[in-house]
């Protein structure tokens, strides 16, 4: 187990290094640089000093060496857009994205699994309706869902059409701030969660049906176990395995989906930050965001693999080998 974790950790570090270096070099090679953000009225001295500040007067190789050296000391450079160290910015944005992802995953699980159990264990109009709805939500990607939800929010004004906190809210303690965030999070979380919930529902439904076809289900019924118990206590545990397999992929889907949802709903997360940084060619911020994204994904896939190992003993054995 320890060896497994150590290997994954090493893998994650290498990934982060490669992804961030690649982004740095790519952003450098892109046409245009950060000094263009100064606008059309900037003086040549302003432009030159900005370029020097971000190492743009050196070659890409020299700049990378300098950056890598500082990165090892956990100094990731400064952002032009925010005029402050990259580290703090990434941390905050990553926390916002993580919060969104966790809520979305929780929502998807709480929606998808029970509904899947429901449709996998009965026929009838209700189950057919849910199955149909699943198919619909599977086909509406986060971009469209967020556009539609923002549209609904803006016209009905039932809930805020974006952002993470109400602009005018005063600094009133933790609980009120949490409440404020709690009002703003359903919109983006729902946009992210719906396709994943639909996937969970479909998978859970199929594997529940499979499980109920197994002899043990019939045997339990014959023994006199109530149908409800057969479903919940016996069949469900067996049916969980495919879901665990998919959890890791779901986390990956969350990360890529979160970019566009953050964009449309103005959620101040990592995806949004990376996009702004790319547009402005804010080179160190780009590298930092890419690194964080890579870290997230490595972490997420680790969780996924651990869950899979927990669910399927064969995987555990293979990994130990």
């Amino acid at each position: 187990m320890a060896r497994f974790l150590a290997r994954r950790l090493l893998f994650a570090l290498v990934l982060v290094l490669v992804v961030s270096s690649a982004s740095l070099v790519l952003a450098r090679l892109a046409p245009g640089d950060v000094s263009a953000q100064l606008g059309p009225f900037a003086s040549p001295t302003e432009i030159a000093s900005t370029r020097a500040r971000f190492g743009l007067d050196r070659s890409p190789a020299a700049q990378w060496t300098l950056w890598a050296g500082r990165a090892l000391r956990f100094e990731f450079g400064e952002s032009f857009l925010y005029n402050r160290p990259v580290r703090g910015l990434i941390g905050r944005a990553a926390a916002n994205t993580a919060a969104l992802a966790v809520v979305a995953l929780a929502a998807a699980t709480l929606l998808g699994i029970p509904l899947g159990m429901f449709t996998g264990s009965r026929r009838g109009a209700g189950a057919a309706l849910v199955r149909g709805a699943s198919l619909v939500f599977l086909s509406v990607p986060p971009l469209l869902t967020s556009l539609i939800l923002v549209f609904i929010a803006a016209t009905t004004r039932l809930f805020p059409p974006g952002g993470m906190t109400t602009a005018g809210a005063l600094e009133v303690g933790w609980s009120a701030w949490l409440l404020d965030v709690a009002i703003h999070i359903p919109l983006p979380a729902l946009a992210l969660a719906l396709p994943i919930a639909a996937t969970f529902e479909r998978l859970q439904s199929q594997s529940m049906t499979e499980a109920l076809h197994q002899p043990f289900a019939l045997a339990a019924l014959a023994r006199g176990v109530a149908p409800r118990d057969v479903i919940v206590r016996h069949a469900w545990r067996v049916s969980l395995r495919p879901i665990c397999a998919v959890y890791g992929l779901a986390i990956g889907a969350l990360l890529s989906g979160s970019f566009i949802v953050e964009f449309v709903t103005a959620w101040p997360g990592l995806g949004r930050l990376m996009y702004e940084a790319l547009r402005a060619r804010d080179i160190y911020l780009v590298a930092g965001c890419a690194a964080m994204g890579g870290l997230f994904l490595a972490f997420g896939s680790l969780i996924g693999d651990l869950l899979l190992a927990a669910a399927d003993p064969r995987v555990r054995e293979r990994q130990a080998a």
Partner: protein
Amino acid sequence: MLVTAGLLAAFVLVMRLGRDLGRDGVSGGGGGPAARGGQIVASIRGEPRTFNRYVAQDQTSEALSLLLQARLVRINRATFELEPWLAEKWESSPDGRTHTIHLRPGLTWSDGTPLTSADVLFSLRAIYDPKVESVLADSLTAGGQPLRAAAPDAQTVVVTFAAPSGRGVRLLDGLPILPKHKLEAALTAGTFASAYNTTTPPADVVGAGPFVLREYQPGQRVVLDRNPRYWRKAPDGSPLPYLDRIVLQIVPEQNAELLRIQSGETDLTSTELRPEDYVPIRRAEEEGRLRLIELGVGPDADALWFCLKPEVKGKDPRFAFVQRPEFRRAISYAVDREAFAETVFLSAAVPVWGPITPGNPNWFWPDIPRYPHDDDRARMLLREIGLEDRNGNGVVEDAAGTEARFTVITQRGIGWYERGTAVVRDELAGIGIALEIAPLELGALIQRLQACDYDAMYYRPVFNDLDPAANLDFWLSSGSSHFWNMSQKTPATDWERRIDTLMLEQAAELNPDRRIMQFRLVQQIMAENLPVLHFAAPRMYYAHSARLQGVVPSVLRPPVLWNADGLSVSQ
């Protein structure tokens, strides 16, 4: 299942209950024409990069500077008159080179320290300090030289100009006064440029403006509280500002800004409306949620220009005819400006033939030479310089066969740029000039502008000061914003040399009428040579929430916050 349903219900409940959170925040007393207290939320587009106006000149920095700091005098952005501000009165010598400025008695900084002439001297020192590389240094000059100042006593400053300047004391509107007691150490140590940055503790960002910094959350908002020691009083003697708090929310995109003001989350936007936003805002006005104001014609018009830098374009065979004024005049004749205003700005614009529009009433010249829409004259002009469609493919070419084909770069995503370039392209196709439009991100656009790496560009440069003498960077051939040929060592053309001379004269001229005449000559030369072509100037519309009172809108940015100390909210 039940668990899920229960959680869903809980969410819905929380949303309905919590909707009132922070909506109106602190409310003050009621009644009266200008109620005290309350807070407003305004959106800003850009992230604050620093709270030190001396080293940044973006829109957000300017807005923050107007809110947090004060100047000696203020140019009222609605009437363009000079008002006493920190200075109570001043006298100018007849030759216009010495101005004696008297500060108001009893001025204090937001932390209670008295504001004296020493602070004014310090501010000037900081601006001209070479280590600071202040962006304000170039504009705070007279005759190209820095201003000199002396302080005979704590309430008086004597400012000396190296040469007479037509703008005179108005120059000082561009000098926010910063506190010596807070920043002198940084100036001496050479770290002034990074003083008052975004990580400085808010309590240390001391100023004399109507508001003080309370907190800054990167990526989210800036919160400002009223300055209890602000010097200005309302006409009835009560202290200003009326508002207790201003929240500046950072919303990078115009669509999102619009959404927020419509849903009631914000009270103000950072810029004027686009023509396509008129309809939803009008609807909101009819429902009583917003107020729509028309400010009249804006001071800036969209411009089309070709890069005329001989060092870069000299080898380009097209340059031979592009550099001829007849070419540009032909283009001016070819565009039907009425139709342009209709299509591009949805009729909310007026035709213009030069960079100064009716929205700049002091400097606008109604009799500027015009080019009425006349395709035949345009084609005749092109023939005069040897451009004809010899091979019948619809595009004119010169005797050597070089076609008049160009790529126009512009900023992507802006409705009127896209429509404007499309209209110009269609009009010019009628006289045989082929244009291809290439929308770019702003960063890439600026890059190409500075390198002269483009054929033609279509853009609206926004000037923050209506006085042409404040924009010498654009008018002078040596200027870094002389877009069609920036930073020339010597004037490339005769007419640019004449403009240089006239502009410098005009900047030093004390008689306002003579200044206007001189500038008209400049406009005449521009209209004859047309290095930049202007077609229409849009009318400006602005929206704010219905609860906001005391709004004095301006065509300059920021449209409302420049007069923040007069704003209040009705209950």
